[in-house]
């Protein structure tokens, strides 16, 4: 997000895609979408399409990673080669390693890991179509997949970002807003407590702008949390 020529992304208080400043893109959630995974979830968020598969608690491979006192929770974030305009070379890269790490940390804090020593809980995230904010969608989908797998957790996590475009703090940057915006703050939040489990930021925020951005995310997370609960209920009322 280096300064580029000013691009008008707000007209008459409305964003490029017609959203208000405090509005998230349309979200669609489905739980239990894969047969082999113990738990799974599919999240469509704007043009993002992300699927998460959860396994465990199960044996730890490689063995030396196991902990005698608790379960380890590992998330692997992976972008499909066709998920971005220029084909992404398959396999891990530095960006995906970092995202996997911050999501793993966030999920570990939610799972009652002391109950399952010497085991692993694994979540595999596949980004099928990427359009800004995939790590937030990945966190949301991972949390749902763990819930679907019946892993005991303190609560669900919502991933949501806020950023700055044309000097205004807005919720959930879209693709073009992300490319030409001035700041982005992806956050993982536990809506029941308002606590923060994941936080990254890049760009340029004053302290006031940061506070405003975090406020927008906190408020939005409640609505997204409702949608997650609804999706889980739908899944289990069908059975």
């Amino acid at each position, binding site marked *: *997000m*280096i*300064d580029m020529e000013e691009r008008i992304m707000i007209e008459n208080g409305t964003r490029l895609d017609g959203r208000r400043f405090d509005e998230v893109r349309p979200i669609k959630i489905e739980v239990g979408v894969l047969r082999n995974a113990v738990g799974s979830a599919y999240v469509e968020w704007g043009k993002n399409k992300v699927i998460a598969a959860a396994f465990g608690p199960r044996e730890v491979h490689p063995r*030396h990673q196991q*902990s005698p006192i608790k379960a380890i929770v590992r998330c692997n974030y992976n972008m499909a080669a066709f998920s971005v305009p220029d084909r992404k070379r398959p396999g891990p890269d*530095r*960006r995906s*390693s*970092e995202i*996997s*790490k*911050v999501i793993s*940390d*966030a999920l*570990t*804090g939610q799972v009652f890991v002391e109950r399952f020593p010497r085991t692993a809980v694994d979540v595999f995230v596949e980004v099928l179509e990427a359009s800004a904010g995939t790590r937030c969608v990945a966190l949301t989908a991972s949390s749902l997949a763990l819930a679907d797998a019946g892993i005991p957790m303190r609560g669900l996590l919502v991933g949501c970002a806020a950023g700055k475009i044309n000097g205004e703090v807005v919720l959930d940057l879209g693709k073009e807003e992300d490319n030409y915006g001035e700041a982005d*703050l992806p956050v993982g939040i*536990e809506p029941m*407590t*308002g*606590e*923060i*489990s*994941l*936080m*990254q*930021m*890049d*760009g*340029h*925020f*004053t*302290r006031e702008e*940061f*506070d405003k951005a*975090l406020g927008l995310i*906190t408020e939005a997370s409640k609505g997204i949390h409702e949608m997650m609960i609804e999706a889980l209920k739908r899944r289990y009322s069908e059975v």
Partner: protein
Amino acid sequence: MDRELIPDIERGYISRLIRERKRTDGRGFEEFRPLSVEINPYGSAEGSARVKLGNTDVIVGIKMIIGEPYSDRPASGVLTTVAELRPGASEFFEQGPPKAESIELARVVDRGIRESGAIELDKLCIVEGEKVWVLFIDIHALDFDGNLIDAAGIAAIAALKNATVRASDHEVGDDFPLPVVESPIPVTVYKVGGELLLDANLVEETVAEARLTITMDEKGDIRAMQKGGTANLTVEEVQRAMDLAQKGSNNIRDLLAMD
């Protein structure tokens, strides 16, 4: 060796100290360890700095080559940051390809420098669309006693500010100082035993529940952030971390007399 295996007894001891508002080495919660910066100790690098923060010892070297620009930024130099956590620096570091820990370190340091616009990358263009300077920031950890992010971030900006573009070696004009116009300083706030503190040493960092790195520019605006660790932070804790980071970065700036 797994850092998780720090014995519970040690964990308990540190938490107890923290509750009494004490630290293992007697420092205040907002107090950094002694900081020393050695500028350009290595002549082979275009710029270098060796930073000691207590017993944490890290070198940053700047190297530059001529390469191609990215197609979407044809008139801009290219910045790459890599961190090596050498096994000699700690029994927690192992030989082999970079692990998530070193990738995260490099990316957090990189983000602060990149997002603050510290380097005027447009001045590193030689022929638009064809030839630009490609700049490498190599972080080399020599001795690890906690808080590597802050030490590496300080070393990186110190090395950049004292780097020379060796244009004459490549027959593309006269040498010139690397154009650096900002001093982003990352400050990591650690949550240990429920309390927030700065510049954790190794034991404190190992038992820390969470950390939040905040990189501020000279104005005190926020340029990059990274949370680590598994515990959640309340919004109030994030706000306090901001205040601490502000104070910490001012202190470091004073120590470096960068401004």
